[in-house]
């Protein structure tokens, strides 16, 4: 059964149609590469899945049940986590504060609460250790290298036990060694039964770790096929328009 199922999704921004009648499905333990040129609608689709945007029309169901995401917290509750391309970090906060942002551990009741700084620092330290990152929980994010910043963003996805992880250009701004680590993490997520959507411009990354590739062009889905039945040349042709659709 599909973990996430989207039917006939459209999204309009005024007169502009960012998505037009897109169907999208993903199963547990599957890695799907989402590709397309700038303005193809990849980010819009990701934002809809992550709860940042509501579709103009269309249906979303999670594990067979219809779902409506009015904000990112709704998506998180259903086990959907996202790592944004810009990593969505606040430089003025510590690594631990960034990991727990929006989901702070608290003691007390309702508005009469106190943040549990020690518990959050300890949990963040454990998460960084699991990610084999030397990031220190009390360091300000502004002091960190690209790899450490990415570790902070990735650590967020491990706070809960997500079922679907969205990665938006995770290898765009990191070193070659760190790219290999990220790809290994994606493979590890698949092996542990997680669904992963990878948005990337790097053809090599997509063909290395993905099971299926979906190509968007001008807001429409023009390809959705197993990666073994495609090739980088075909995907490039689909992205640029040299190949109409498959």
């Amino acid at each position, binding site marked *: 059964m599909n973990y996430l199922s989207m039917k006939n999704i459209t999204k309009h921004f005024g007169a502009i149609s960012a998505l037009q009648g897109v169907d999208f499905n993903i199963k547990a333990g599957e890695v799907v590469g989402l590709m397309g040129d700038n303005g193809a609608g990849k980010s819009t689709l990701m934002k809809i899945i992550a709860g940042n945007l509501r579709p103009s029309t269309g249906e979303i169901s999670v594990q067979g049940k219809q779902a409506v995401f009015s904000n990112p917290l709704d998506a998180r509750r259903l086990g959907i986590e996202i790592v944004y391309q810009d990593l969505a*970090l606040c430089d003025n906060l510590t690594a631990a504060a960034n990991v727990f942002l929006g989901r702070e551990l608290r003691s007390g009741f309702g508005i009469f609460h106190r943040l549990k700084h020690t518990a959050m620092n300890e949990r963040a330290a454990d998460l960084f250790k699991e990610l084999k990152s030397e990031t220190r929980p009390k360091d300000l994010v502004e002091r960190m*290298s690209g790899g450490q910043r990415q570790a902070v963003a990735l650590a967020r996805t491990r706070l809960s036990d997500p079922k679907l992880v969205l990665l938006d250009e995770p290898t765009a701004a990191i070193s070659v060694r760190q790219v290999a680590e990220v790809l290994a993490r994606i493979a590890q997520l698949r092996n542990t039964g997680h669904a992963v959507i990878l948005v990337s411009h790097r053809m090599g990354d997509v063909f290395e770790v993905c099971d299926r590739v979906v190509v968007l062009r001008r807001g429409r889905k023009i390809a959705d096929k197993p990666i073994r039945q495609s090739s980088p040349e075909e995907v490039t042709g689909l992205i640029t328009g040299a190949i109409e659709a498959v």
Partner: protein
Amino acid sequence: MLSEKHLSFLIDNLIWIILIAVFTFFATQSEHFLTERNISNILTAAAVLGVLVVGQTFVLISGNFDLSTESTMGLAALLGLWLIVPAAAPTFGGGIFLNPFFAIGVVLLTGAAIGYAVGCLITFGRMHNFIVTLAVLLIIRGFMLAFSEGAPVNGFNNPSADVFYWLGHQKAFFIPGVGNITVAVVATGLLFLVVHFILQNHKFGRELYAIGGNRKAAEQLGINANRRIRQVYMISGLLAALAGWMLAGRVVSIQSNLGEGFIFTVFAGAVIGGVSLQGGRGTMLGALGGVLLLSTIDRGLNLMHVSVFWVKVIQGLIILVAMFLDAQRVRLREISLSVSTKTFRAKSESET
């Protein structure tokens, strides 16, 4: 050579070093400076400024600013007394004879409502905070003039007005060497403590720092930035009204231009105390240092008999110095960051 930790501590606590230096300077310049009466005066003058700075710090940390609070403060004082005292001379009130406790409630609600309306204009109306708060500053000031027809509202020998004056006027206790501590000083001190706790240990405070630091990221993570900004402006308006109620007890006769130009001192207090105009940085303890420094300088100049003509010049210079210090703080932090990041990366690489 200072270590990164010590340099960071020094940058964050620069205000207290400056405060001690300024305090020592005035103590050597005037024999009256260290008297109980003067220290009590410094604290009492700091109380009203402190309440406004607390509100402004909330707004600044969220990456916004609020120019309208000086007018809201003036309106609160004027409206509160107007609701209580008789219409005829010499009080020039509204003749409504409202119970002073209700008047206090009306004043605080009015302040909160003005703040919330400002927040709504900025978030729902997608208008720039500078323009909105400047417009509200002018509207309220004009309204005060029209409302009072330029005449001051007074509370001479009026028992109800005395109740209204209580917060700004009443002495709470006496501390040997410091002098009389007013209720206003105690209330402001408590306010700083509570807000310091909220900013450092409450989800609301954490979200404000996040919004001020990177609003887009905060929203991507599910924080409703617009709602928080409306709440912050509401708090700022409420605290401006509280400051107005406090100020009424000190000036007794409320002029329609009460608080005019005070907003610059409020910004100076916050910025000197390390609260960044860029948002996301600053602490309530730093802001407290800024308030005490400005109040100390004000009283010190007074005791040194500096001409009032020069006081404005000095106030302007203080704001320039505050901006200079803010720029230096950013520069020092960047230097400290580049040094520590290089050291940390080198250490990490040598370990791997």
